[in-house]
């Protein structure tokens, strides 16, 4: 039996768990040794990629460009002592305001722009193209991250026990965002996308609420759940729709 490509990559970076066994196998197996040498050549070519030299005076140039901006941003007092409690308070206010704005913007964007139909949401006096592109990218990222976690679990090998605590935390983080997108899609009257996001939310919730260590049977149950609804395929379709919108010259 030969060593998988993934194991070779991890071995090359010193991250393989069974490095000694892999080393012994490479010494004995000409096929795997050839594959490893080929990998080494590819990564050696990567190492030879020249990075441009920014020049001797680069740091001075960076500072020159920074300095006026620093004084503007700070109102000339950035480096003066400001009580930390006051600063923390201001930071919380900014964060709360930013969070509220983000929810409003995402909802407005999803309701009024992503799904076609009469535009009833009042336009915000913000730079449209930039804002919409960022939001599309955010939605695309959400779909991409969701796919990654599902792919990871769908491809995991059912063993006696599998620690999925990090996947759980990740799924729990995604549930909140997903709910926002799903509700906005429902209000915008797009049943197809609502259904996909609804399916996704159920799977994410199942992952988030499953035991942090899965038995083989529990993992297989989740894998069947992922496969049975073709959720990965549907997510890819929605993501490609979002990406196409993102690539249009005028945003949406």
């Amino acid at each position, binding site marked *: 039996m030969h060593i998988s*490509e*993934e194991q070779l*990559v*991890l071995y090359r*970076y010193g*991250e393989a768990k069974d490095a000694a066994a892999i080393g012994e196998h490479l010494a004995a197996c000409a096929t795997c040794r050839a594959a490893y040498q*080929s*990998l080494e*050549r*590819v*990564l*050696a*070519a*990567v190492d030879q*990629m020249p*990075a*441009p030299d*920014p020049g001797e005076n*680069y*740091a*001075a140039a*960076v*500072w020159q*460009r*920074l*300095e006026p*901006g*620093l*004084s503007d*941003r*700070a109102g*000339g007092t*950035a*480096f*003066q002592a*400001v009580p*930390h409690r006051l*600063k923390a308070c201001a930071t919380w206010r900014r964060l709360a305001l930013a969070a509220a704005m983000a929810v409003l913007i995402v909802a407005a964007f999803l309701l009024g722009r992503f799904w076609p139909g009469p535009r009833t949401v009042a336009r915000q006096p913000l730079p449209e193209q930039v804002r919409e*592109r*960022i939001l599309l*990218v955010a939605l*695309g*990222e959400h779909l*991409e*991250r969701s796919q*990654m*976690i599902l*792919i*990871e679990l769908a491809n*995991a090998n059912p063993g006696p026990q599998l620690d999925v605590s*990090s*996947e759980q935390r*990740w799924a729990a983080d995604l549930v909140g965002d997903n709910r926002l997108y799903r509700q906005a899609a429902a209000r915008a009257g797009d049943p197809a996308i609502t259904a996909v996001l609804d399916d996704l939310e159920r799977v994410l919730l199942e992952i988030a609420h499953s035991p942090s260590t899965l038995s083989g049977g529990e993992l297989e149950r989740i894998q069947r759940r992922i496969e049975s609804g073709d959720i990965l395929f549907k997510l890819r379709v929605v993501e490609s729709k979002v*990406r196409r919108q*993102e*690539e249009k010259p005028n945003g949406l």
Partner: protein
Amino acid sequence: MSRPETGREGEFRLLVEQHSRALFGLAWRMTGNQQDAEEIVQETFLRAYRSFDRFDGRAQPGTWLHRIAVNCALDLLRARRHDAGRVELEAAGSDAGDAVPASDTAPGPDRLLLSAEVQRRLTAALRRLSPIERAAFVLRHYEGCPIEEISRELGMSENAAKNCVFRAVQKLREALQPLV
């Protein structure tokens, strides 16, 4: 005329002087573009400046700046994903039918051409990586970050980070396989 520097401003300027070039290298590897790299360095220091008062010195300044730069680069790459898509199409078109045979014994000019072709393919392949794959690969390969640290920096599980690095290497390998 420059305004006089305060003590903290002097400290910050020192950070700029010490870390600009390293951050430029990191940013260039993550974007493959000099202008983007310069933009990222600038934005990194602006973000660092805003939180400089909260930087308590427990972390190494280089590590702190490095983390900010990675986030800036990711933001930029995500925002410019549509450009990457265009490059992908162009690269796919130019790759068709122009495979150069591998040769270890080729004479000088051929070797030069081969090396240029390797670089061209590598550049195209790096651009085809998703922002997360590229970030994970750059952090692992060039910066020597362990998978566990990459997973923290990119906000993903260790398995996902591993997959990203693996997928990136696989794509680079596919692009270079006939040549190296």
